């Protein structure tokens, strides 16, 4: 007698937490072969593991390298299960445009936030690094995004965050988007000052914040 569905999901979750890419793929194949619902296998198996990884990150047990490896294990499984998701189960995902504001040197933090949000079921559109304020607005309109997320690593570029909000105001579309900011030098106080809707100090907290912003 093989394992039960719950046991399989729990093993899938563990494979993600333990950063085991191959095992995650293998267990996901097992889920497909057993005829389990692919959406459920992601939701109750793989994604649970990623949630756990996020908690370990918050607790200072896991750091960036570990979180990235967990995400690889998650994605290895998702790639296998994705083709089997029944279309009616594919809920409409909330769209987020994310990018690093003009001038910044690197984008490790932004990539991490993107990865965590994708794993939590958001459709994340990455504008990359060195993104001018006007492009954040243009793309958010084009993509019909719910949230604009702006990251900055240097105080030099923090003014650009306020510019995004100013442009939204000028165009009279401020209420159509939630604006969230993050990054090394950014603080809650700064977010309040420029009138941003959300602030997160780390990648895992960003999930909670994004959920709140879209009312999930």
């Amino acid at each position, binding site marked *: 007698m093989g394992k039960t569905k719950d046991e399989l999901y729990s093993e899938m979750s563990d494979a993600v937490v333990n950063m085991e890419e191959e095992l995650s793929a293998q267990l996901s194949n097992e889920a497909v072969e057993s005829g389990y619902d692919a959406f459920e296998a992601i939701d109750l198996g793989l994604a649970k593991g990623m949630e756990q990884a996020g908690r370990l990150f918050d607790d200072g047990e896991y*750091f960036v390298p570990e979180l*990235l490896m967990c995400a*690889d294990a998650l994605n290895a499984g998702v790639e296998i299960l994705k083709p089997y998701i029944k279309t009616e189960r594919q809920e409409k995902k909330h769209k987020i445009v994310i990018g690093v504001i003009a001038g910044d040197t*690197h984008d*490790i933090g932004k990539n991490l936030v993107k990865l965590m949000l994708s794993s939590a079921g958001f459709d994340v559109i990455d504008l990359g690094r060195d993104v001018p304020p006007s492009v954040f607005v243009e793309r958010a309109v084009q993509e019909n995004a719910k949230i604009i997320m702006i990251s900055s690593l240097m*105080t030099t570029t923090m003014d650009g965050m306020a510019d995004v909000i100013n442009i939204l105001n000028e165009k009279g579309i401020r209420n159509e988007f939630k604006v969230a900011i993050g990054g090394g*030098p950014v603080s809650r106080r700064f977010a309040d000052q420029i009138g941003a809707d959300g602030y997160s100090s780390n990648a895992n907290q960003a999930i909670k914040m994004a959920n709140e912003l879209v009312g999930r």
Partner: protein
Amino acid sequence: MDVFSPKERLQKTLSGETVDRPPVICPGGMMNAAIVDVMTKTGHLLPDAHHTSDKMSDLAYDVYENTGFENFGIPFCMTVEAEALGSSINFGSLECEPKIQKEVFPSVKDVTFLPDGTIANSSRAETVIQAIYLLSEKYPEIPAVGSLTGPISTAASIVDPMIFLKQLRREREAAHKVIDYVTEQLISYAKLMADNGAAAISIADPTATGEILGPKIFDEYAVYYLNKITDSVHELGVPVIVHICGDVRMVKPQLQKLHSKVLSVDAIVDLAMLKKELDNMPAMGNISTYLLEFGNADTVFKQAKHLLSKNIDILAPACGLSTSTPLNNITAFTSAIKEG
């Protein structure tokens, strides 16, 4: 009349001797004070000054003269090393510092190992070394600090950082090989800086933080390779400053293993407390760059006095300065320290 020249004061402080008051410096690299206010006043502008030693030394002198920092700190970016090793660079503008356009390798396993001295002999490094030479010859009483991008950050500037960070765990052997290669390249560059008059070498390694790497990987890679560079430079009799970004709470025991003469940290760290916890380790820092940019001169002055009262060994900005920092905030900081 000061008892010590700025160079004597810095060197004595770095060798643990008592001086009249702590030096106030800005070491260059990520932490440089080439702000727009200074450049527009003197007309020596970035990004031009990244490229010729005359312009670089002129701007370094302008910064020294106008800000009140008691050193020359060059270069004005963190891209010299990665460019020499193959990555493409965007040189930015007057307001915006240069950055890596694209890391040249997708993985630590794809790195092409160039001959030793590739950084040291590159045209960018030559500009920096020549500028150090010019400044230290012309102004022997002012310390020229040569700023180096740390080994982890340089490695993460030639290999895609998201892949690189995973490979620190997954491909340890290949990762060590790449960081060791980068370290050797940095050592020969630092030695040339020292040979040409650098009074100190400052290493900033912003990718190597406790928050990003965690204590184990910080120990295995950052501490080991930072010490390797530090030891090589110390052999030449030139002191090393190491700057660690971010919150260091997770890596305090590891910080104690660093061989540098002084440890510089971010504004989030309570420097007086850290000093106490690390057996009175010499500490540098850490006026908030946020305060310097957005605060007023009065508050900056008071905060500087507060730091001074905590027996911090060297006063300096906590992190990279914004290029739009007002000059009078910086002079409020430096003058508060100088009047003792």
